[in-house]
């Protein structure tokens, strides 16, 4: 078993922690009241710190810290204040540009490296994100170009990202020539393309903004199709959603767990009851133990899923397991934090309520708990190497049969 956090990745944690201690924690009051100007400034500072460069290899201009370094950074930034960390959208930009290659990569990479470009997946439609066969957004060929029409909703920061990867119908799923998933194609669309419109923006209960965007005869060049190509759109979308989205969301949930642990331990040392700090009470210690166990388990699952990707191996099942576990653990630990803090835990100026409100907001991001469990269940029942899906057995520590 060789899975371990490297010294480079531990330094990345220290760098992110120092950033959080200076740029986030003293300014939590501004984030709490959703001060947009401050959030913009913070996003610029995060770009300047280069956090988005972790998953970009050295030979492409990044730091090459890998998925492992990236999840550790997102964990620390998320622990300082639970929010949609800006580097996630910059990482999407890289993932989409790399997946598309050619002119798209050439055009966007300089801005991506500087942290000046952001992107989001344009997948969800009003009837849902996982029901891809019933998507209503279409693209039809017109010469060398394609014309896109339709609507996508719940696009994270969709009102301000520079571009996105959109999954659309280019064929009829019932037609034998374009059966099932062969009817779907992924394109890169840019916000400046005529016909692209932000229809409306909505806020979640913690102020995270998602947008509904529409496409009215949006003309997209043929070389904006994401490889492998027409009728093969699910693969690149899944890769991006898993590697950037699911792992990133797991890391931010990990931040909720870590933040809940930190504030609870601090509070348990400071709060005096019956003449003693409350950590002297077994009931409190056991709650903290439960939180710590969840932190250790969630870290192990998330880091390992990231490590597998850094070894060039698939970790789709591990990512689903991590995302499901982190969601549940974040809700559990933040509720423990509220219990430990007593009345203070639900007060606006204390952190537990923030973590507790934020964790459920990530349930649907990257796939709901049900989608995660279904994916895991299908692989466990049908896979030759059950929990690992397509991975060679020797790379996995998970054998259940």
């Amino acid at each position, binding site marked *: 078993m060789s899975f371990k956090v490297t010294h480079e990745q531990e330094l990345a944690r220290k760098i992110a922690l120092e950033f959080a201690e200076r740029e986030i924690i003293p300014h939590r009051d501004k984030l709490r009241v959703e001060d947009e100007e401050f959030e913009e400034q913070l996003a610029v500072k995060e770009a300047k*710190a280069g956090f988005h460069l972790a998953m970009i290899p050295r030979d492409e201009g990044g730091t090459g810290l890998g998925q492992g370094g990236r999840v550790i950074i997102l964990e620390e930034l998320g622990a300082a204040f639970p929010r949609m960390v800006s580097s996630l959208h910059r990482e999407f930009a890289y993932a989409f540009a790399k997946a598309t290659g050619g002119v798209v990569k050439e055009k966007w990479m300089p801005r991506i490296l500087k942290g000046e470009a952001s992107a989001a997946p344009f997948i969800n439609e009003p009837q849902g994100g996982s029901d891809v066969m019933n998507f209503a957004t279409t693209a039809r060929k017109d010469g060398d170009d394609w014309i896109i029409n339709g609507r996508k909703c719940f696009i994270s920061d969709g009102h301000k990202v520079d571009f996105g990867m959109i999954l659309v119908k280019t064929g009829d799923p019932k037609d034998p020539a374009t059966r099932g998933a062969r009817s779907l194609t992924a394109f890169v669309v840019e916000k400046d393309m005529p016909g692209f419109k932000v229809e409306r923006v909505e806020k979640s209960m913690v102020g995270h903004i998602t947008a509904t965007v529409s496409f009215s005869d949006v003309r997209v060049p043929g070389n904006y199709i994401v490889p492998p190509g027409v009728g093969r759109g699910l693969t690149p979308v899944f890769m991006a959603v898993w590697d950037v989205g699911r792992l990133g969301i797991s890391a931010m949930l990990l931040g909720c767990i870590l933040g809940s642990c930190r504030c609870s331990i601090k509070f348990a040392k400071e709060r005096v009851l019956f003449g003693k700090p409350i950590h002297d009470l077994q009931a409190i210690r056991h709650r903290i133990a439960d939180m710590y166990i969840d932190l250790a388990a969630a870290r192990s699952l998330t880091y390992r899923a990231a490590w597998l990707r850094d070894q060039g191996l698939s970790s789709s099942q591990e990512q689903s397991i991590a995302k499901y576990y982190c969601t549940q653990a974040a809700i559990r630990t933040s509720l423990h934090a509220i219990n430990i803090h007593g009345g203070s835990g639900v007060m606006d100026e204390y952190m537990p309520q923030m973590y507790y409100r934020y964790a459920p907001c990530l349930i649907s991001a990257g796939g709901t708990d049900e989608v995660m469990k279904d994916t895991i269940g299908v692989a466990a029942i049908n896979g030759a190497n059950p929990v690992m899906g397509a991975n060679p057995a020797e790379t996995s520590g998970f054998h259940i049969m």
Partner: protein
Amino acid sequence: MKELNSVVCIKPVPDQRFWDKISLDPKTQTLRRAGIPVALGPLDLNALEEALRIKEARGGKVTVISMGPPGTEEILEWAIVLGADEAVLLSDRAFAGADTLATAYVLASGIKKLGDVDLVFLGNESLDGSTGQVGPQVAEFLGMSHLTHITKIDLAGDTKLKARFHIEFGSIDVEVKTPVVIAVDKEVNEPRLANIWGAVWAQERKINCWSINDVEVDKDKIGLPGSPTQVAGVTTIELKRKGEMLTGEPADIARQLVKKLQTDKVLPEALVCRRDVV
């Protein structure tokens, strides 16, 4: 414009976040620091920042140097994360127990070995010892000019710089020729935050470990035997609030107060109270 090579002297100090865990060993009269993480002192960060700014403006190289036991690499590595080009750790059992003079002597020996140095930066004083002596002592050993309590630095030509130093009732602007040793105050700049590239630099840039055999030193001037300062004792000061109400006419209260301060040896006993004042 001439490139300027800087050396920054840094010192590991107990991480401020863990100060509540530091205690005094009554037997050995030393601090119990086992298990307490070390960090770069706050003024060391200012010193490093100034060197990095000068490098960005003029080119050259920034080298950090420290004398300490194994483990000091951690703070040298952090200096590299922040942007230093290379690091030197002077570490040897023979250096242990050094006071400021012996420390400055070894640091100066290391700086001499580095060779082409235009500027030597330090924090004006360390977070733990707070003597403020090492900067001027290093300068003496190197035969360089020195400036202390520096709050502002501007480059002025190839071999000159303008600096402002803080005095009790204001500040003084001076012009100085390089090479020079500069001890900075916190007002000199705002230290930068590390960039994520620092994690990469830390893997690529080198920390050189030099022992007594690597530097030219007189063995009588190093470590505990070479230290003229001996610590006679260390005591913990207990800070307790004690409220006490004085009553009476204002002049009577003042007299009571003076007497109490004399009893507590805050005021000299021979103080003559002028009746017309109190």
